């Protein structure tokens, strides 16, 4: 049986806090997660949920308090594993005295490519992220969006089978976001495994095979976006208007939202028929009836709220 692309086993990270650094603050709590080859997994969570901590642990930038992880069966502690991965840090910043071409050329040297191969690769990936015309401009003159593109280029420069992108869409305008989405889809099409964190839920819904939701350092749920949201109770949305010359009863209007001459009302699925009966009895014109499917955002907010209510302890005091 082949190894999963990413296998995270009970990964935990505590940071010392307080003046004497004797208290420990838990940023990530026993995260166990598996990502299969060729899968695009969206790693969702509010700010401070532990997404970047997870990424940094996987990259070996910080060290776990407990647990471990493997990429394609190799431990993350093994330096050769880094040949299999590409990483775009959150809000990337690069050597601003270099040009985009020089930076990529510099990074390509770590993978042992000869000068010709480096040149070809660098040109190819600069073109892929739309930076061919700015390739020889120093990075200190780049906008945030351009730096993000350089970041993506350096992450996929060596054609890694597993790509980690930390908030790849953050700070980008709609055009930039669309371009990054296209790159992620291209990576998926080329068979790469993509693990990307985001709090832009529409992007996750659009791109991911599965999403994992992290809140307060704890994994709250994993699954396909459609699976995850289907556990919620559905409701129905009715759009209606009054017929010409007829005014609607006050009791009906008060329950609805007025939208440019039309009214919208949302009722539970079981209450649909009585509501329709009431509207018909007052001679309202029914414009549309549609089910309200809960979005990933609803699920996400529900989890965040639940976490707040449960108020799980995230600080462990070390005696």
């Amino acid at each position, binding site marked *: 049986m082949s190894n999963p692309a990413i296998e995270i086993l009970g990964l935990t990270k505590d940071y010392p806090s307080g003046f004497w650094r004797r208290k420990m603050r838990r940023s990530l709590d026993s995260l166990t997660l598996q990502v299969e080859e060729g899968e695009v997994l969206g790693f969702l969570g509010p700010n401070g949920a532990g997404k970047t901590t997870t990424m940094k642990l996987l*990259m070996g930038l*910080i060290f776990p308090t407990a647990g471990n992880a493997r990429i394609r069966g190799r431990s993350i502690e093994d330096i050769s594993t880094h040949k299999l991965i590409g990483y775009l*840090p959150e*809000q990337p910043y690069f*050597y601003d005295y*270099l040009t985009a071409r020089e930076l990529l050329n510099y990074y390509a040297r770590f993978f042992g490519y000869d000068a010709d191969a480096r040149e070809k690769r660098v040109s190819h990936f600069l073109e892929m992220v739309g930076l061919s015309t700015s390739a020889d401009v120093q990075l200190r003159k780049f906008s945030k969006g351009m730096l993000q593109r350089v970041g993506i280029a350096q992450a996929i420069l060596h054609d890694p089978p597993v790509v980690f992108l930390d908030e790849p869409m953050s700070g980008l305008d709609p055009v930039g976001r669309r371009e990054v989405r296209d790159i992620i889809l291209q990576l998926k099409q080329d068979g790469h495994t993509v693990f990307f964190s985001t709090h832009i839920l529409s992007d996750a819904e659009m791109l991911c095979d599965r999403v994992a939701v992290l809140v307060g350092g704890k994994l709250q749920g994993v699954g396909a976006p459609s699976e995850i949201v289907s556990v919620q109770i559905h409701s129905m949305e009715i759009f209606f208007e009054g017929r010409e010359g007829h005014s609607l009863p006050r009791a009906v209007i008060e329950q609805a939202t007025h939208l440019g001459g039309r009214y919208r009302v949302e009722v539970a699925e079981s209450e649909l028929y009585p509501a329709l009966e009431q509207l018909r009895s007052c001679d309202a014109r029914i414009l549309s009836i549609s089910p309200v499917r809960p979005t990933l955002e609803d699920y996400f907010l529900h989890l965040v709220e639940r976490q707040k209510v449960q108020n799980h302890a995230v600080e462990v005091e070390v005696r």
Partner: protein
Amino acid sequence: MSAITGVVAINTFREAVRDRVLYNLVFFALLLIGAAILVGQISIGIDRLVIVNLGLSAISVFGLVMAVFIGVGLVCKEIEKRTLYSLLSKPIRRWEFVIGKYAGLLLTLLLNTVFMSFGLAVALFYVGRPFVRSDVSILVAIYLILLEFALVTALALFFSCFSSPMLSILFTLSIYITGTFAADIREFGDFSRNPALKAITRALYYVIPNFHNFNAIASAGHGQSIPFSLVWQDTLYAVLYVVLVLFASSITFSVRDLK
């Protein structure tokens, strides 16, 4: 040195060049030109002494300032600016990064010193003094200055691996100043009747690098030969010390969380 270390070293050198660090050579050149013109007019017979002393002292001071102020930023600047995150996701070990940064700054200092030494030679030529055999001592003094740079850079890098730039500057300069007076501190302890103070000053003498031993500027100025024993002992001392400090730096940095 691995190929990876070399790649990091070259980039560190490139950073120094692009950040216009080598512009200090212009100030050095102006200083020596001014001194040579002035000395040619006012001094009789001691022009060589003045030019050599001034030139070697400037090489030492300019280089030390570079070693300390660039050295302390080698690692922590990369952490602060987060340039390290994407770099360390590549197949590079942390010790390779540390050694590469060190080698890159040392290369910068070496090149800087070579240019300055050439400037000194031109200044000596300008004051009309032919080169003689005893001038070899100037080259030896420059070599010892380079060893000093190697040590100071290693110390600055070490502190940079776990401390902020300001604290690293403070620590490095403290050690440099203490190390320059290490022999005096030991003598002070020996004169004291307090055994505890004596033990402390002796410990300091052996632990802190003895920078005084690398200063041969006065001998070079007077055209005196510098004993070969001092040269090889200093070389061995510097190499051992640098290896130890770089080892400690690599270990420290390898276990550090890059938050």
